[in-house]
């Protein structure tokens, strides 16, 4: 099994990744603040405040994404919440296994389940969870707001060299979403 256990980069991938959406929730979900007390409350309030500001900053793209997503509802798309986004699942356009994020909206064609789809997105040496990859993009939108799409395309567009995509892969493996 030596050949099997070696990735394209020659690095053993045995035990490299044991991440699924449930484990992700345990790792990154809301958990009691270990510091507790007033400092813990202020820390939580600060995090929530920054998150709300980020979502407001991403709102123009979220509105566009929402309009696109709503366009699929009469054709069978359904709405859920997850991965820091409003998710339109079973969208009638696109191929299975694909995903698209616009602000805090994610669109998944039929056959794409953000929790269970994994792919080697943008040259990743290991399969990446689609929902987590797209979740990273929502956080990137919250940082870059209306400048996200121009910055994304100026950074290489749809390519394995785009730092936004590489950061999304890194986030899905437990790292930072920031490019």
């Amino acid at each position, binding site marked *: *099994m030596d*050949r*099997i*256990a*070696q*990735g*394209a980069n020659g690095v053993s*991938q*045995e035990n*490299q*990744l*044991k991440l*699924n*959406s*449930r484990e992700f929730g345990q790792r990154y979900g809301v958990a009691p603040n270990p510091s507790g007390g007033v400092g813990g409350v202020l820390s939580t309030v600060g995090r929530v405040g920054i998150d709300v500001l980020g979502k407001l900053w991403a709102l123009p793209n979220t509105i*566009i994404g929402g*309009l*696109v997503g709503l*366009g699929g509802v009469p054709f069978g798309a359904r709405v859920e919440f997850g991965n820091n986004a409003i998710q339109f699942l*079973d969208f009638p*356009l*696109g*191929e*299975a*296994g*694909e*995903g*698209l994020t*616009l602000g805090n909206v994610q669109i998944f064609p*039929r*056959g*794409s*389940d953000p*929790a*269970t*789809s*994994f*792919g*080697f*997105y*943008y040259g990743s*040496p*290991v*399969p990446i969870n*689609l929902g987590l*990859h*797209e979740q990273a993009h929502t956080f990137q939108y919250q940082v870059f707001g209306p400048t996200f799409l121009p910055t*994304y395309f100026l950074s290489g*567009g*749809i390519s394995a060299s785009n730092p936004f*995509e590489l950061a999304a892969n890194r986030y899905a493996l437990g790292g930072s979403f920031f490019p």
Partner: protein
Amino acid sequence: MRGPARRLAWTLVLAFPLLGFVCDQSHAPALQNNLDQPIKIHAAYSNGQSFAQDFPPGARIWAPHEGLVITRLQVAMNGKVLFDLNSQDIERLAAGVAPGQRIVWTIESDGIHPVPLKKD
């Protein structure tokens, strides 16, 4: 339709083709865990790429590139190997698949089966 609403509608119509290019894309063949428990999949592809990773029930794993062939596939549950296929085994199982057909290899309790990929 009034001016601003019409502009917005046209913006969306014109932007839609662009959206097709910003999707995170997937490639066949895929692997799918149709068992009701997490499994560990060791797989190798015809370009030499491989992985060994745990996946939850229902997971579908797309290939690194379109048109690759799986050359080795081992599935284990709770440390016990359930299936271990080499390239000859996989070729034999895929014999009934039309050339060029995009497929999903479904991992079931009774074996691993190539299923033509269709839009769900």
